[in-house]
């Protein structure tokens, strides 16, 4: 009964979404207040109905209702309760329902935090989101009903894929989805601006927090996903350039570009058509990712079980949304484009470079992801593009970008006076060069050219992004302190620097060793001694495992004991590698069990990963920077009243 209520609620939500898609847009066109007023209640109603539907599916998981096909396929009586909740989004149907729920939640958020927004703009934004919602719910109802019954009911479920039984995985998809779906708001703002023909600095200011918030969720989601892959897949890498990873990375890159381009649109009223295009692209790439993952068109370890009808549906939806948006763009953007000059040395120039480089990087990732498909369709051959290609190609736009960050954030709008910039940058430049050379040399004992380029850039960004906060902190009573906006920017760039340090050091000095070991034997990696004390059997709630107890010593001194496991989950029977990691701030010692080699011997993978934590730490710092930036007071005050004062204040500080 409860699953039927869930399905019924979803159908009702569809009808409300249809109202939300049609009436406010029509109302805004005819300037009819009553029709525009439908936006808010429709968004609220739709959210409540989708939430009921989502709760019903969760209920089915918690009550082990194996008469629901989706539950029978992805849960089990013995599955721990926490994973029953996360199992809801562990596969296609349920995760799509989550997508719908988040879209409804974002729409509701737009209607709640829109006090200063002109009525017609709000109606258009909510209407466009209604159109997206209609397509999303229809997709669930027609091709991916999570409430489908299994007759007769299964006695027990097939269990959640053991790979997914992990806290890191349990939370990273919702975070990613908040980001993907959140870009629909920026998309809707862009469409609304193109329909109304009204694109001004106020519009850009409105859009900024709605871009930064999804971006920061996406940042955390990608970081957690990378962390999960690192310790759960058992390989010890942190980024694999897998098509699905790329699918999450491309919206992030474009979202980052959009945040920067919006800064120019808000402060100077420039880059308008460019901002529109990026806003359309960020959500379009989210949809593209969805298509790639759910249609089965490419091979990936993360791809969902697939079905061609789903592929055609998403492709149709994607084509409608993106082609529609870009056709509108081709028609309206020329009249919205702004032309105004700025000098070659100005913040505008640097932000333009930032945008160009990020778009080039996105294009390269997109090409690398789709090339195997395109080659196959053109001449039938199979090619595979792996991490080495991406690593080289990606460096081309990224290396100049990391150097430019440090300069860009200190340049002035319009025109930069020469002397001031040199003064500001001298100290960070010296710190960058000295620190970037000494860091690898002193702590790790050797340098290579590429490594030094990387570490110099990284230390340079860190130093450069600290300049403004330090200056404002020193001038303790200074009334003209740093704005949240500027502080957020500094912190986010600091995070970027921290990330680059981690990525450079771990790729240059990480050590991996695969050896055969039996109890009593030991091996040495990176100066640490790893001794296998014993092998034993351990039982978990729904798995049994072989566990190796390995003691780590540094020059005879006890450091830690790690317990990597090889688990066999009782239902699905596939073996899982559970790595064990001894982590400190400056290194990870990663130990994973490989395969049994007979006679009590096991292959053991030991890795030394210096500064790998900086990679995720950097990503979290970036997200915190985003959080600080959206807390800037000019987004909170009633914009229309104080817009001018706020932007003046911001301009004098930024």
């Amino acid at each position, binding site marked *: 009964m409860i699953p039927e209520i869930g399905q019924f609620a979803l159908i009702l939500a569809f009808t409300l979404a249809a109202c939300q898609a049609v009436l406010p847009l029509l109302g805004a066109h005819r300037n009819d207040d009553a029709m525009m007023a439908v936006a808010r209640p429709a968004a609220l109603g739709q959210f409540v109905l989708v939430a009921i539907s989502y709760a019903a599916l969760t209920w089915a998981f918690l009550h082990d209702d194996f008469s629901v096909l989706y539950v029978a396929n992805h849960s089990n009586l013995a599955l721990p309760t926490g994973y029953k909740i996360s199992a809801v989004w562990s596969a296609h149907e349920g995760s799509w329902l989550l997508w719908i729920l988040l879209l409804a939640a974002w729409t509701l958020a737009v209607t709640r935090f829109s006090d200063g927004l002109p009525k017609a703009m709000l109606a258009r934004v909510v209407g466009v989101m209604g159109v997206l919602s209609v397509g999303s719910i229809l997709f669930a109802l027609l091709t991916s009903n999570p409430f489908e019954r299994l007759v007769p009911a299964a006695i027990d479920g097939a269990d959640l894929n053991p790979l997914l039984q992990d806290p890191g995985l349990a939370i990273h998809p919702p975070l990613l989805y908040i980001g993907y779906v959140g870009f629909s708001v920026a998309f809707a703002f862009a469409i609304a601006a193109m329909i109304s023909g009204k694109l001004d600095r106020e519009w850009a200011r409105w859009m900024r927090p709605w871009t930064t918030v999804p971006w920061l969720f996406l940042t955390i989601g990608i970081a957690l996903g990378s962390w999960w892959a690192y310790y759960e897949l058992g390989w010890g890498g942190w980024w694999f350039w897998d098509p699905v990873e790329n699918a999450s990375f491309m919206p992030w890159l474009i979202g980052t570009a959009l945040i920067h381009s919006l800064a120019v649109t808000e402060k100077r009223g420039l880059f308008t058509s460019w901002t529109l295009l990026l806003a*359309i692209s960020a959500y379009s790439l989210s949809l593209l990712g969805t298509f790639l993952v759910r249609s089965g068109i490419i091979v990936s370890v993360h791809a969902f079980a697939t079905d061609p009808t789903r592929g055609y549906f998403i*492709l149709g939806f994607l*084509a409608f949304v993106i082609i529609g948006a*870009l056709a509108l763009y081709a028609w309206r953007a020329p009249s919205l484009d702004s032309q105004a000059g700025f000098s070659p040395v100005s913040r505008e120039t640097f932000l333009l470079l930032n945008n160009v480089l990020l778009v080039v990087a996105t294009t390269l990732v997109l090409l690398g992801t*789709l090339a195997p498909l395109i080659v196959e369709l053109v001449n039938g051959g199979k090619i595979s593009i792996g991490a080495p290609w991406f690593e080289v190609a990606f460096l081309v736009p990224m290396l100049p970008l990391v150097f430019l960050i440090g300069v860009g954030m200190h340049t002035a709008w319009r025109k930069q006076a020469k002397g001031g910039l040199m003064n500001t940058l001298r100290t960070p430049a010296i710190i960058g060069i000295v620190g970037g050379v000494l860091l690898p040399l002193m702590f790790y004992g050797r340098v290579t050219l590429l490594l030094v380029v990387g570490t110099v850039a990284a230390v340079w960004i860190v130093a450069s992004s600290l300049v403004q906060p330090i200056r404002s902190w020193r001038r303790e009573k200074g009334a003209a302190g740093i704005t949240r906006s500027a502080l957020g920017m500094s912190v986010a760039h600091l995070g970027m620097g921290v990330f680059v340090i981690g990525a450079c050091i771990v790729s240059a000095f990480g050590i991996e060793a695969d050896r055969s070991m039996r109890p009593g034997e030991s091996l040495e990696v990176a100066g640490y001694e790893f001794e296998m004390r014993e092998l034993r059997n351990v039982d978990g709630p729904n798995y049994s495992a072989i566990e190796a107890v390995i003691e780590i010593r540094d020059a005879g001194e006890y450091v830690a004991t790690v317990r990597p496991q090889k688990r066999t989950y009782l239902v699905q029977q596939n073996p899982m590698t559970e790595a064990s990691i001894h982590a400190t701030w400056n290194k990870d010692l990663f130990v994973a069990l490989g395969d049994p080699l007979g006679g009590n011997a096991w292959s053991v993978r030991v890795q030394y990963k210096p500064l790998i934590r900086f990679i995720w730490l950097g990503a979290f710092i970036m997200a915190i920077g985003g959080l600080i930036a959206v807390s800037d007071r000019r987004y909170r005050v009633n914009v229309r009243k104080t817009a001018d004062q706020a932007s003046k204040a911001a301009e004098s500080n930024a």
Partner: protein
Amino acid sequence: MTRFALPLVGVVILVVFFYIGLDGTRDPSALPSQFVGKPAPEFDLPAVIDPERRVSNADLRGQISLVNVWATWCVGCRAEHEFLNQLAQQGEYPIYGINWRDNRATALEWLGRLGNPYVKSGFDEDGRVGIDWGVYGAPETFLISAQGEVVYRFTGPLSWELWDQEFVPRIERMSAQ
């Protein structure tokens, strides 16, 4: 004006590519399998029902046959089981099972309860034969020629629709040669 239409043009081309790429007969996970066109990997397993009997490559020669990898813990296998029963009833192509990483008692109970479409099923308790055959998840179904060569490998639960779409054309091509 034209430069503003460029993104539109790019996306239209991409969508056309995707549309062609979704064509159902293209299977992206059908890696150019090292097995396809080669003799089926060597195996010799005790049968599920009677451990004294063996199931091996010798069974696969002389007639077009199917090898189906199944297990009682696999929901997809349950989903395709009725189809396998019906196919077996037609009696045109013998189906051999590889009972993969399973428990003999539950496997026997399953065959008793749901019906047994297999001529014989080999009992691959530790999954070694599964490794040799490159199985990465049950159910998987291999189409084997009369010469004992792997013609096609299908992953996922089968149905009549998929059978007509994926297997029948290949069998017809084989018979034509």
